[in-house]
């Protein structure tokens, strides 16, 4: 049978505030355990929550950026359950009336295909602390630094049909929150976390199949793997006559598999009700308009601008704007090189090609690139002004990557300057022709393919420094001469 995969994602984006959502404790990552957990975060008796202004602004920004309805009235509710990382015995979240409802995000799947993914809702809530399961005399250690950190939970519609689409959506969302400056997007530190709801159904069937929720998928790669694992598992189950159980599963990156999480409780009964310590959050339409004015250039707007301003094609532009850092890097290089369209295309190729490949190889983010925008610009400048060939440029890039420095001094030091002196090139060509009489004869008797042989020999003799275009022209003249 042919199966259709149905995926919805729930993303928890940690909002980039200084202090917690309901207390004045700091949110910095990596602090000593429990040094950023104040009396409110610890759930001491009698202490009370007061909402952080900036989380409202950030959620509003997000809502506007995905064309959602920003609710003028939203309500905080308590989700009640017992767990040691949850100090009050309830999590303050939004349930019936979230701050953001509806919305959509367009994702680019390949050069010609894009797709719109629906966003059901986004709501504000507080994060829980962490349980450390190392052995403390048979006990578990609890660090509540993270308790009370503001989260925006963004829930998508079940609109994705493959792990690839899910990753594209997740990347687009990741890029968006970074553009908005509302989340640092650091997945290793857990600032951007994803739970995947996966189900399958026979192709053509309208009803959804039973879904599982896979938690703890905290990198783009893992999302893809976890979903694919889960899809295969569900297909195997159904095809062998079994049934998919609605459950929460945990992705284990080491084993690349998902497994049932021992349910915290037989059936969770969270007893949601409006938090009586907090009043309804009301937002005026003036406030919403004020926030709208603060919105930065969004990815799709930047993409359009890149296409127009730099004459890039849609695909290149969409790749470049997929991360704010990459877009900024690209523009920094273009601006240093000079803004001719040809240069822009060349810069785009370098950023998306050699630079991205090198970053991927070393598992680095563009913000961590050892070759800074100014260095890459210096390199590309020399390609544009014909000082070096593209081939030499790759060698220099490698040096920049490994050892740092700047292009001009590398050219100087290693003598990599392109040979553009016609006389010099002619001299070398003459030598090449003279030492290969046999090939010359064959060529002249019609074996055209040997032209490449002579180009190769010439380039080799100049250690790649001869201007390839000139070599071509001069060789042709001499050989056909």
């Amino acid at each position, binding site marked *: 049978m042919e199966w259709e995969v149905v995926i919805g994602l729930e993303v928890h984006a940690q909002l980039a*505030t*200084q*202090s917690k959502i309901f*207390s*004045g*404790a*700091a949110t910095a990552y990596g602090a*000593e*355990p*429990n*040094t*950023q*957990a*104040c*009396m*409110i975060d*610890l759930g*001491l008796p009698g202490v009370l929550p*007061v*909402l*952080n*202004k*900036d*989380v*409202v602004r950030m959620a509003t920004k997000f809502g506007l950026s995905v064309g959602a309805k920003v609710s003028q009235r939203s*309500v*905080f509710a308590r989700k009640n359950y*017992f767990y*040691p990382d949850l100090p009050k015995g309830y999590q303050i979240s939004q349930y019936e009336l979230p701050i953001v409802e509806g919305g959509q995000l367009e994702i680019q799947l390949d050069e010609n295909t894009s797709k719109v993914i629906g966003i059901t809702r986004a709501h504000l809530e507080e994060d829980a602390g962490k*349980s*450390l*399961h190392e052995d*403390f*005399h*048979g*006990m*578990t*250690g*609890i*660090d*509540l630094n993270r308790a009370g950190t503001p989260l925006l939970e963004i829930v998508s519609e079940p609109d994705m049909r493959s792990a690839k689409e899910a990753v594209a959506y997740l990347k687009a969302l990741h890029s968006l929150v970074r553009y908005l400056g509302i989340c640092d997007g650091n997945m290793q530190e857990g600032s951007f976390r994803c739970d995947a709801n996966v189900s399958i159904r026979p192709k053509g069937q309208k009803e959804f199949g039973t879904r599982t929720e896979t938690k703890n998928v905290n990198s783009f790669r893992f999302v893809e793997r976890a979903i694919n694992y889960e899809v295969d598992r569900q297909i195997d189950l159904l095809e062998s006559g079994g049934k998919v159980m609605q459950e929460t599963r945990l992705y284990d990156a080491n084993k690349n598999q998902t*497994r*049932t*999480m*021992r349910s*915290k409780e037989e059936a969770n*009964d969270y*007893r949601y009700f*409006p938090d*009586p310590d*907090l*009043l*309804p*959050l*009301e937002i005026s339409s003036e406030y919403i308009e004020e926030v709208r004015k603060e919105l930065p250039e969004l990815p799709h707007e930047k993409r359009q601008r890149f296409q127009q301003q730099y004459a890039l094609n849609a695909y290149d532009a969409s790749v470049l704007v997929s991360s704010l850092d990459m877009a900024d890097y690209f523009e920094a290089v273009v601006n240093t090189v000079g803004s001719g369209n040809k240069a822009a295309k060349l810069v785009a190729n370098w950023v998306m090609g050699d630079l991205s490949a090198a970053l991927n190889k070393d598992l680095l983010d563009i913000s961590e690139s050892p070759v800074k925008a100014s260095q890459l610009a210096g390199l590309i400048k020399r390609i544009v002004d014909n000082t070096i060939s593209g081939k030499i440029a790759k060698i220099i890039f490698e040096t920049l990557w490994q050892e740092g420095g700047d292009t001009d001094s590398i050219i100087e030091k290693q003598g990599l300057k392109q040979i553009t002196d016609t006389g010099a090139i002619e001299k070398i060509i003459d030598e090449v022709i003279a030492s290969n009489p046999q090939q010359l004869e064959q060529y002249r008797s019609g074996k055209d393919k040997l032209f490449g042989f002579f180009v190769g020999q010439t380039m080799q003799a100049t250690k790649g420094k001869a201007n390839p275009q000139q070599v071509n022209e001069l060789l042709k003249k001499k050989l056909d001469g």
Partner: protein
Amino acid sequence: MSISESDVLNIAHLARLEIETTDIPKYAQDLSSILELVEQMQTQNTDQIVPMAHPLNATQRLREDNVTEPNQRDLAMAIAPAAEAGLYLVPKVIEEQDA
């Protein structure tokens, strides 16, 4: 609304309360009579009435995003039943051991 002894145990579990076996019948009886009292609400017609969670029509006030709480770990740990290395210690969750 009558609450059975097994209802008492279910609710007590949800609320994480240990109830002495000998006390269960009394709780069942008390909860039943309380719920019987509560049932009298049903005589009040509330069609079209919007629920009210708060007595005043006030709305949520917001605080500036400033760090105002310094590190208070020592104060907090001083009253903890069990703590070590800056961590609160609690018994292990047995359910996770074989997962």
